């Protein structure tokens, strides 16, 4: 059993303004930046690209709502960054979650992937399909 300390998540209810949220474990205080609900920073965009390349939607659903795999809109509310990286790296084989150690796309973008999914779970990123915000 992993003991989880839950920090209060900042709720980002302000649409059409840049939103920054704190990660639940405080390890990363700026996981994502989002404007208008779907325009994200470069790191988060790469996280979305990793999400697509690894075909995460086949188990977790096109909108992260959950299919054979759990809803990430729910589980990412409480999963710490550290736990997230562990699951993506090692997988949960008996439950059907693969290990992505051999996927460079995923391994190079775990920060962005965490940011993207955190933004989805917190409701700040309002649609699964995101775009890169203009620089």
């Amino acid at each position, binding site marked *: 059993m992993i003991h989880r300390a839950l920090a209060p998540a900042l709720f980002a209810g302000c649409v059409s303004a840049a939103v920054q949220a704190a990660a639940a474990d405080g390890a990363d205080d700026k996981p994502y930046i989002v404007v208008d609900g779907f325009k994200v920073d470069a790191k988060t965009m790469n996280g979305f690209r990793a999400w697509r*390349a690894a075909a995460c939607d*086949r188990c977790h659903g*096109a*909108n992260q*709502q959950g299919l*054979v795999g759990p809803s990430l809109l729910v589980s990412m509310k409480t999963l710490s960054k550290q736990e997230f990286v562990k699951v993506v790296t090692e997988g949960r084989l008996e439950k*059907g979650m693969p290990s992505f150690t051999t*996927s460079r*796309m995923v391994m190079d973008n775990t920060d962005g992937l965490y940011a993207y999914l955190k933004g989805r779970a917190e409701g700040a990123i309002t*649609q699964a399909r995101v775009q890169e915000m203009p620089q």
Partner: protein
Amino acid sequence: MAFLPLLLSIPRMAAANGELEKLISDPKNWAMQAGDMYNQRYSKLGQINRQNVGRMQVAWMFSTGVLRGHEGSPLVVNGMMYVHTPFPNKIFAIDLDTRKIVWRYEPRQDTAVIPQMCCDTVYRGLAYAENKIFLQQADSTLVALDAKSGNVLWSVKNGDPKVGAVNTNAPHVFKDKVITGISGGEWGVRGFVAAYDINTGNQVWKAYSTGPDAEMLIDPQKTMTWTDGTLQPVGENSSLSTWQGDQWKNGGGTTWGWYSYDKALNLMYYGTGNPSTWNPAQRPGDNRWSMTIMARDVDTGMAKWVYQMTPYDEWDFDGVNEMILADLNVKGKPTRALVHFDRNGFGYTLDRATGALLVAAKFDPKVNWATHVDMKTGRPQVVKAYSTAQNGPEVNTKGICPAALGSKDQQPAAYNPKNRLFYVPTNHVCMDYEPFKVDYVAGQPYVGATLSMYPTPGSHGGMGNFIVWDASQGRIVQSKAEKFSVWSGALVTAGGLACYGTLEGYLKCVDANNINKELFRFKTPSGIIGNVFTYQHKGKQYIGVYSGIGGWAGIGMAAGLEKDTDGLGAVGGYKELRDYTDLGGSLTVFALPDQVVATK
């Protein structure tokens, strides 16, 4: 010829497996997954009939101890029942006199296989021949067990799960060979079918779905295909010339469906799956011979004829669904027909001896990705608005019907020889499809498209239909709406019944002459994606089915969302299915009460 010395290497003459033929000719057995070699799923048993089926009761139940999707059905051979499960692919041999477990077998498999099976751990069942049970494990190992003791006789590795080559299909015994395929189209696995000697496990032949003629067991001059309204040789490098560069090496065309066999022609029939990736921009060309009906000589593996249904797939319309063999009057002419309900929404009728295309028509009126199949070229006429290739990568093509899981997936249809009609469990689902570029990494998913699926708009609101189809004319005779996809294999019996399971978990039996007349329903412990089967023991007919929700039906249904923001409050699809059922794994067997049997 008893005076001949026994020579092990003498090739047998054209007979099917004699013992297996004898077993399937006796309707008391259910000795093959489809009940026969023609994939007809028809039983001559008539004790349970349209008059008395309403009084049918549960006779006994059996829990497999495994959750997740239970596809296929048990086998029944000479008073023994052989039950299989999804991963870890357990087998139980049950004595039907005592209902005791005579032996059980559980292979040891690496759990790393589970994620490679995305998105469920289904296994479509066992095969039997000559006192052997054949198990096709998920990790690709093919095993022969002694049917009486469960002792392993031989085992052979069929593929490499490290690169995503796993198995979900049932092996099939034709003659002295056990024939199996491979899964992993979403991992860029190059599909093949392989035949192994039932006695030794030695590989007799192996035929790839893509690549050079020699590896495909294609003869450029003798292998025929429907061209310009007639049958013509495929010519040199018919596959290689339709791929760009080396893309065919990771080109898919996997073979995870149901196979059939015609003894008189000595041909086996099966279909190949989608070309990899799902992003058509990465593989310009017809991508032969993915999405293809194959007819092969069982002894040599050589392809007699091929017919590609969906050249240059842009929607993931695998062509693996069963090929049903039946002798029909097609447009007034007696025909040795092959009938196939494809994922792409078209029902095909071909001459199974020659490969001539006779009928191709929509078996769901809402199919919209193509207007029709040109009967001269055999090519579907694609509608530009629904072409994910023409719309290009990074564009979400919306409103394509059917969805990737097809107007029908692997759930097998049944044939009724009494009226020469087909009883088809179907899906009624549409999709949005956005392709994108993806790089191949061995052992990692290689998909390259994001899909959303939802109930067919502008219809009855449900996600399935159970239909009756006339394959001679290519028309729907009757249709019965279902709330969810009908993901269960159908059974038709001489008692005038058509039976199938539903995702909510009901076993339903309807009048074969009027499928909207429901005669029996019973809610089993979990959603049904297994195939209905029947057998007789000690004078009593039984009808049985696995329940255990899973497969793409139970999990691959993204909810019909108006907006992404509807996410958690989604209606339709899986979210709603959860209101009816949960995971399970059991067999439910039905029969008539003794007093009803006695008064027959």
